[in-house]
């Protein structure tokens, strides 16, 4: 079971490292830094796991990819989910549905989403107009193939 404990410790280290790398920024903005954190922990874990945990590099890499994908999905969902945000808002007090939408839109609505797309390099602004970048179009192409 030493191997499993070492893997769990490495996973915890990667998740803590990710939060430190993000430094409070959004996942979409700091994804590069997060990938570096996960890669560094993976590389550091290879030898101890092979030597003391009887877990080879292929098994660890397969596990690591799945763990990263799951962490990314959950982390990103918690950060961006409209439903969870509305639930959080309703914890404070009951509201009419119109008020919930209004309150959500004021803080996390259209303007906030546009700003996030801009920060993520998916759109660019020129002369007060938003246009999609090559990166944005590439993402849309991938999305249309996988949706």
């Amino acid at each position, binding site marked *: 079971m*030493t*191997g*499993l404990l070492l*893997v769990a410790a490495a996973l915890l280290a990667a998740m803590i490292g990710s*939060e430190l790398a993000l430094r*409070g920024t959004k996942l979409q903005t700091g994804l590069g830094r997060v990938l570096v954190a996960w890669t560094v922990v993976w590389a550091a874990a290879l030898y101890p796991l*092979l*030597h003391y945990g*009887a877990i*080879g590099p*292929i*098994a*660890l890499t*397969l*596990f690591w*990819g*799945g*763990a*990263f*994908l*799951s*962490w*990314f*999905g*959950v982390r*990103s*969902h*918690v*950060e*961006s989910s*409209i439903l*969870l945000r*509305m*639930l*959080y808002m*309703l*914890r404070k007090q*009951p509201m*009419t*549905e119109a008020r*919930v*939408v209004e309150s959500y*839109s004021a803080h996390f*609505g*259209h303007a906030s*989403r*546009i700003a*996030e*797309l801009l920060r993520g390099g*998916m*759109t660019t602004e020129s002369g007060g107009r*938003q*246009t*999609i970048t090559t990166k*944005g179009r590439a*993402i*849309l192409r991938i*999305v249309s193939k*996988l*949706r």
Partner: protein
Amino acid sequence: MDALTARTAHTPVEAHAEPYRLRRAPMDSLNWLAVAALALILVIFYFVRKIPAYLALSFVVAVGYAGATAAQVDWHLPSEWMVIVIGLLFWSFGLLIVRLMLVRSVSLRLLARMDGGEQENIVEDIAGRLHDMRSFRLTRVQGDGTSMLTGWGRFVGVVVAALYSVFRIEA
């Protein structure tokens, strides 16, 4: 000692006589099958767009791998096999979330509307989540027209608050 012999050795002494890295072939059948199972999960993710069907098939692959390889596992050193099985389940779950994000993401829909030159209105998308909250029995509408959390909704709300705090997300 080849990889299969090491895995099926009957005595613990024999199985642990050499360091693990010396006993192992670079890539034995356990690993080949794991890579094949992962490839199959990725193919299923690409071709099966219905979420319940994807979930069922990918789960069958992960459990099928576990069942098919259990006889090859050296039960004195099961960590690697367990890590692979958990890894396959992580891939299935992670890809499920990715599919949900691709289908439901308001930001991606906004980007697609901008690309198509359509009006960039996301209020309908946002309002649709209120309906989802009722469907999932997280909220109920009171007599005065206000929405309030159900017991289940309050529980999920506490979990969300804790996650916002752990992830340092602006509350």
